[in-house]
């Protein structure tokens, strides 16, 4: 046919990121995003693709040898040795319906000295019109559920060293908030001191799926150190398949557990008066969506007013502290636009909300998601898409 050209009819795990995201590129013109400063505060690369390399960064020589030996001798352990990769995560792609969640197996021409993941990250940023991207690992976000806390600490430190050396040092557009080995406050302090000034490190992270209560006294030096350095603390949600014992479908597990972990930490954070103790520490709640926030504001205010004596450090309502915290936008629940508008108003989105794509996960949000919201002003859109992040991370 003279005027028609056939396109690859089926997007698969082998499709190029630029082809998968071709429609996002159209949004750049549609919403005039080219002159926006867009910061994506939550995206991912697949660290298990480089796992055998990361194992070589383990500090403890005995554990390092065990890991490398497992990787070499056990079938499939090259990408899993010592990790607690949660098996339920492989349900995430809805039975092959969302291929980019399973893997990005596209062709990348090798560039000497440059990691393949950097090329993939650049392809995604350029396709979505993103200026800077904060990149996190994936299964490592569940490392807080690892049965052995010492192995957890060793893996986090090995990953942090590998990531700062192999990825962050090579591309100024890529940033990260590095995971803290949160079961050891001393190790957290060492981590902040070792990595706090490395290029691309813009804050630190608690991987939220863990039992640790954030109010423990021995965490206070960690919060103080971050506050003094002006580095934000993020709480990145994740799934916990153990709720699957009560829930039989991944949709239920994901809908609940990505939120409940942050609900617990946020409640502890506020009721124990941590915003009063560390008023300059910027706290960011990542990847729990937004719909939980009006619920938490109302629920905590309601109970606090009746039980003030149990939270005597508070000088105002829990919801008022929540309005001073930061939130990433994804996955933005938008099936009821009135509720979404009220939610954004409740959290002072114009100054507190940070755009996040979560690419390449199955529930990612393109920048057009924010740019297309009818009730936001032009300035609010600019703030949410990048200017708030510029301020929070001093970019």
């Amino acid at each position, binding site marked *: 046919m003279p005027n028609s050209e056939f*396109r690859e009819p089926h997007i698969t795990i082998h499709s190029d990121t630029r082809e998968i995201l071709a429609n*996002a590129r159209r949004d750049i013109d549609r919403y005039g995003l080219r002159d926006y400063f867009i910061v994506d505060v939550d995206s991912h690369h697949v660290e298990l693709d480089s796992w055998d390399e990361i194992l070589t960064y383990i500090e403890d020589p005995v554990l390092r040898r065990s890991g490398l030996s497992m990787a070499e001798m056990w079938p499939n352990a090259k990408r899993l040795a010592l990790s607690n990769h949660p098996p339920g995560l492989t349900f995430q792609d809805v039975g092959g319906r969302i291929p980019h969640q399973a893997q990005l197996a596209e062709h990348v021409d090798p560039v000497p000295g440059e990691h393949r993941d950097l090329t993939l990250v650049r392809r995604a940023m350029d396709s979505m019109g993103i200026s800077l991207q904060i990149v996190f690992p994936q299964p490592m976000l569940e490392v807080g559920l690892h049965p052995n806390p010492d192995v957890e600490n060793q893996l986090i430190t090995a990953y942090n060293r590998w990531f700062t050396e192999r990825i962050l040092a090579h591309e100024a557009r890529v940033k990260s908030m590095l995971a803290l080995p949160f079961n050891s406050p001393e190790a957290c302090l060492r981590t902040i001191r070792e990595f706090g000034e490395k290029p691309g490190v813009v804050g630190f992270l608690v991987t939220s799926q863990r039992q640790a209560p954030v109010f423990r006294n021995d965490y206070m030096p960690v919060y103080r150190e971050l506050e003094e350095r002006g580095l934000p603390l993020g709480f990145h949600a994740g799934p916990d398949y153990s709720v699957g014992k009560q829930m039989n479908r991944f949709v239920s597990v994901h809908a609940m557990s990505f939120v409940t972990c942050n609900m617990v930490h946020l409640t502890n954070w506020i009721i124990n008066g941590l915003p009063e103790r560390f008023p300059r520490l910027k706290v960011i709640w990542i990847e729990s969506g937004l719909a939980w926030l009006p619920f938490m504001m109302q629920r905590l205010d309601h109970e606090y007013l009746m039980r003030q004596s149990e939270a005597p450090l508070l000088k105002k309502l829990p919801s008022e502290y929540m309005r001073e915290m930061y939130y990433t936008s994804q996955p933005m629940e938008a099936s009821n636009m009135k509720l979404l508008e009220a939610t954004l108003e409740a959290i002072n989105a114009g100054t507190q909300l940070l755009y996040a794509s979560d690419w390449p996960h199955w529930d990612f949000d393109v920048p057009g998601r924010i740019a297309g919201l009818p009730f936001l002003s032009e300035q609010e859109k600019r703030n949410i898409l990048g200017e708030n992040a510029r301020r929070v991370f001093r970019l």
Partner: protein
Amino acid sequence: MKQAIAKSADIPEGGRIVIDIPGATIGLFRAAGSLYAYENTCPHQGGPVCQGLLIPAVEERLNKDGTAAGFRFDPSDPRVVCPWHGYEFSILTGRHPGNAAIRLRSVPVSEEEGIVYAEL
């Protein structure tokens, strides 16, 4: 304006092609003996919906007493699944099975002497 966009033989029963034409990208599907055409822009976030997995609907069977009897595919309800986030659409109606208001933009098509024409 009526435009020739493909040959009928390019789209066998159960098949699909995706075509770039000036100003639009269209997915053409042949299912249950008929031809269906939709714009390749998902109503959710604008994803390339026509380039997704073709798969029959999943149905959950129930026994008369209300007990669950497991899942199975329903080949009479072919679906295309948007690859960005998994919104699933009936190829026969273009609608999301859970909310009929969420629908693909359909493009009128006809076939004459082995050529597919679209009304654009």
